[in-house]
């Protein structure tokens, strides 16, 4: 049982904390030492004194945390010692620079997955399967209804939709999160169909990707007012183009300047019909940078871990199903008693995330 051994990580109100090494992983609040799995906003928050992150993500992490942040980087697989704990970062295959964090202390190995996926993605390093005594896994899509179609089939769906819009003289716009999802969608595009444009926010991230050595198809950026007034006349100014933009600009002036376009949303949530309908977009493409149900289970199985802690997303269902199959699985909430080991500090438990949060978050 885990409680008989020392926990290398506990959950406090500032996030996952390692008492042995006195550092936090993906802290929710400003702390002294922050180890950050990747540069998505729900994992990398500014304000901490000192950051450690994987070298592959240094450009994106810098643009997320600002020029003043003190960021140290470490290559995937390289080890360092923090307060007696042996720490290393390993590729998580989620987005550029994403890492699982491996902790080793007195023979105990704990791995925090961060966000991850195992499917092929040319815009970041592939997932590395680790072995651990305790594996802390995300579970954003931890229900068996979430099973992703192959990248090839989604890519051909997107490209044929693009070609179809083009034949009607309409611009195609895929709304995808600027960091990770946008680049992944770009990597699926068939450049021979037509020109590719992006929103300035995507362009910003693309530059970091290119600086980090990632290959993207050639593209142009559309600024706030580059299209002029033609759109007001109902003309489609980019009738042959594919445009990638963050979902937040859907319906904005920036979008309106594109003239007539067909909107689509790229997300794992598009697996569910009701979600597709709710988006008020013409199409929904199933593109996720998280593990689906099968990937989660495979990674958990192959981690060889005796103990699994489910941390992020659909926690309850995965914990229960793992237990049913004989795993020693739990959530941090059900391990609340571990906090008593943390003397002097009395961090409060933050509540399990409620169901409705998940729909907004896909990062």
């Amino acid at each position, binding site marked *: 049982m885990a409680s008989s051994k020392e926990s290398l990580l506990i959950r406090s109100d500032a996030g996952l904390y390692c008492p042995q090494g006195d550092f936090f992983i993906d802290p929710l609040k400003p702390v002294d030492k922050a180890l950050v799995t990747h540069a998505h906003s729900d994992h990398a928050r500014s304000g901490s004194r000192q950051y450690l992150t994987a070298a592959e993500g240094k450009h994106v992490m810098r643009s997320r945390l600002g020029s003043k942040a003190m960021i140290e980087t470490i290559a995937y697989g390289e080890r360092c010692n923090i307060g007696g704990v042996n720490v290393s970062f390993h590729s998580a295959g989620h987005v550029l620079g994403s890492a699982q964090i491996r902790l080793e202390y007195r023979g105990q190995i704990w791995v925090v997955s961060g966000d991850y996926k195992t499917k092929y993605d040319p815009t970041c390093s592939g997932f590395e399967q680790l072995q651990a005594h305790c594996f802390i896994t995300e579970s954003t899509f931890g*229900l*068996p*209804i979430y*099973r992703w179609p192959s990248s090839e089939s989604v890519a051909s769906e997107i490209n044929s*939709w693009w070609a179809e819009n083009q034949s009607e003289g309409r611009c195609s716009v895929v709304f995808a999160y600027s960091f990770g999802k946008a680049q992944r969608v770009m990597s699926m595009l068939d450049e021979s169909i037509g020109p590719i444009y992006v929103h300035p926010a995507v362009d910003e991230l693309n530059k970091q990707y290119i600086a980090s050595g990632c290959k993207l198809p050639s593209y142009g950026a559309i600024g706030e007012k580059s299209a002029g007034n033609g759109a007001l006349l109902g003309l489609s100014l980019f009738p042959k183009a594919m445009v990638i933009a963050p979902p937040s600009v*859907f*319906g*904005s002036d920036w*979008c*309106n300047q594109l003239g*007539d*376009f*067909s*909107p689509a949303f790229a997300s794992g949530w598009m*697996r*569910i*019909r*009701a979600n597709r309908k*709710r988006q*008020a*977009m*013409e*199409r929904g493409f199933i593109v996720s940078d998280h593990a689906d149900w099968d990937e989660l289970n495979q990674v958990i199985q192959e981690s060889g871990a005796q103990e699994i802690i489910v941390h992020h997303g*659909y926690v*309850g*269902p995965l914990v*229960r*199903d793992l237990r*049913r199959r004989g795993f020693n699985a739990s959530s941090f909430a059900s391990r609340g008693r571990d906090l008593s080991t943390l003397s002097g500090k009395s961090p409060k438990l933050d509540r399990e995330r409620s169901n409705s949060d998940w729909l907004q978050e896909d990062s």
Partner: protein
Amino acid sequence: MKAFSELCWQLEQSSNLEKKKRVLIPYFNSVSREDAAWSVFLICGRRLKPSFQSSKLKNFAAEVSPFDDELLHESCTAVGDTAEALAFLIADSSLSEFELKSLSDWMNAISAALRSDDLSKQKEFVFSAWKALGELERLCFNRILLGSMKIDLSPKELIEILAEMSGQSAQQIALKLESKWRVSEEFFEALISSSGYENSALSYPFASAADRTDKGLPEDITSYLAEWKWDGIRAQLVKRRDSIAIWSGKGELLNERCLELISAAEELPDDTVLDGEILGWKDADVLPFADLELRFKTRKLSPKASAEVALVFMAFDILEDSGEDVRSLPLLERKDRLSQLISSRRKRAASEFEQLSLFSPCSLQLNPSLKLSPVFQLENTEQFQELLKDAEQMKVEGLLLKKKDSSYHCESELNWLKIESPGKTLEAVLISVEYGSGTKSRKIVAYHFAVWKNAELIRVCKIRAEDSDEWQDKIAEFVKSNTIKRFGPLCSIKPELVFQISSKSIVSSELQSSGVALRKPVIIKLLGERASSNS
């Protein structure tokens, strides 16, 4: 089944009618007539009976699924659709070859399984089907079993596409779909063949009235007849020997939602066409339009709705009288024929009543659903003004003036004039704004208003936003800093912006939660910001 599930998927991806056309027409041309007929059956929202309860299908799934009941249940909840969730949860195997191939084969087999009282046979059928089918097909299969088939094609779109495909009018297709039919090759053949429907129950073009509300009365008012401008749904009622049709002014077939009018029309002589207004009716009085709308909103009519809102066909013109086209006769003569028709029908019914009453006094009632709209002869404009005052009490929109010697003609609008009663105004507070969809998702498309009643806000109406609205910017700015909650396209805001609203009529209504029904409300002006208080 494969072709049909592929069709459903393609329709789901098609954002407009043009695209749906490009998917559906090749489908109909490539499948057998019988499969096409079954597809029409499913698109029209018909279902096999009886259907499975979703709990039954869940229990079946629990037996073959590697997941426990709770996980199945959580998955169904997350998807919000049992048929879809179960289609996802059953693993793809496609190993076993099923002898069933076409949609017709499947529908017949499903129908037999649904009617079977042998649970283990049902189970065996469902399990082997799940094994044989791919995910999209499983979704259709589950939905057919549960009677919850959803297809992204409305009956109206189907009618339009079939009309184009077969070179018939949309009205002809609508009539054929409305008639009693069973799925068969012959049915689909007849549906797309343009012959054999010469004497069908189509409507005539509708005559319309020119608006004279703000232009004053015509000079020779004595050459006109006046009648109420009823506030309902304009319709033509067509009675043929073997079919009855009720058409809205927009060319929509309303039969399904007007069953009591259909049975009332059965008493009419064959080949009769009447023009009139469908009204909601209760306790010998007309109901506000909003109540009628409530009843028409639901496709299938519940007994409760028909008890709350009875329907009346208020006839005001006759276009065909026992097979004779009377549209070119003068209005006065048509009015005579119409009143004879309706009162003779009454008389006949009444005399039958007298005979029957000896035996069973209560067995026969006059059919109250077919009424004659009263007509007024005017001597001078003062009489007209008197009538217009009564209009409000009558709960009508105003008056129509129709030239006594005019024929029924859809082109010459000047034969019919309408004069609406002056509207009423009230103060209402803006409680929420509604955003559009697609490319309009950042644009406010409608406003929702409420009034204070006993310290409680009660929603009274929704008004479409116009680009010319001068208060648009003010509202947009107010919304930015006073949003309470956004739910889908609806954004509720602090109830502080007060407007003056004008409405054609404000009528009390038991069916509306506010207790009043507003007719064609428009915003007059922004009165200002007021902290929550009574208005």
